[in-house]
């Protein structure tokens, strides 16, 4: 019973802390993109492409947390 509870709490923390760091990082990246497009609108196409790539990199780390949560969630029934 203790193991099931710990699995549940671990799953919650995995998603939350992963999403926290990811959100802050994406906010900082978006800020840089907005400011650079506002400064120089000709580079909007290149900056937009680079922004999507950077956001996908950061989102990967959040997805790692989500996958750990799924695995722990599946372990709850098996224990």
């Amino acid at each position, binding site marked *: 019973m203790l193991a099931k509870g710990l699995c549940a709490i671990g799953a919650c923390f995995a998603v939350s802390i992963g999403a926290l760091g990811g959100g802050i990082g994406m906010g900082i990246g978006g800020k840089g993109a907005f400011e650079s497009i506002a400064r120089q609108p000709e580079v909007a196409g290149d900056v937009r492409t680079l922004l*999507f*790539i950077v*956001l*996908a990199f950061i989102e*990967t780390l959040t*997805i*790692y947390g*989500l*996958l750990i949560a*799924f695995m722990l969630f599946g372990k709850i029934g098996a224990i």
Partner: protein
Amino acid sequence: MYEHVVTQWIIILILALITIPATKNMKVVPRGLQNAWEAIVQWALDFFGGALTEDVAKKWAPLLATFFLFILTSNYLGLLPGAGTISGFVPPTADWNITVTLALIVFFAVHIAGVAENGGLGYLKHFVSPNPAFLPLNLLEEIAHPLSLTIRLFGNIFGHEMIVGFLVLLAPFFIPMPLVALGVLTGLIQALVFTILAASYIASATGEGH
């Protein structure tokens, strides 16, 4: 049990049904379906070949365009009515066996491209550039790149399926709609990012990364 394999056959059928009529009796001035397909293929070749040099881009552009079209079709199949992990047919990229296969194709393509462009010894030399102390980092990158490609694609699509599946069980008709709309954006971005990263890895292996 074999839904992923059967859905992959459906994707092959869809892409073939669009491509074969578009490339039959090709005219110099395109009209109709050939025009639309040429626009899509030209956009893909320009976008993904922008990171590579001319001759390398010509050699590897078909693989990159195929990655993009396959992953895009596969992600969007999960948004049709009747799809879902809980009951119904499954988009193949929601299974990590298939995404690890795509990442392994990228892995071998990177090594083959490096050896084809620079020769065996030149390619091994790029592992110890700019400094021999970089060797463990470069070796670790070789493992980390395909792993992150798999988990990124699998996590995004499988997570979307799981969340939409739960919401459909909880609050049926209107609540999952914004998430399905987000799935349209996510599917496009994940296909784009997978292919851009594959192009960037090939570019760095053939010596354009500097």
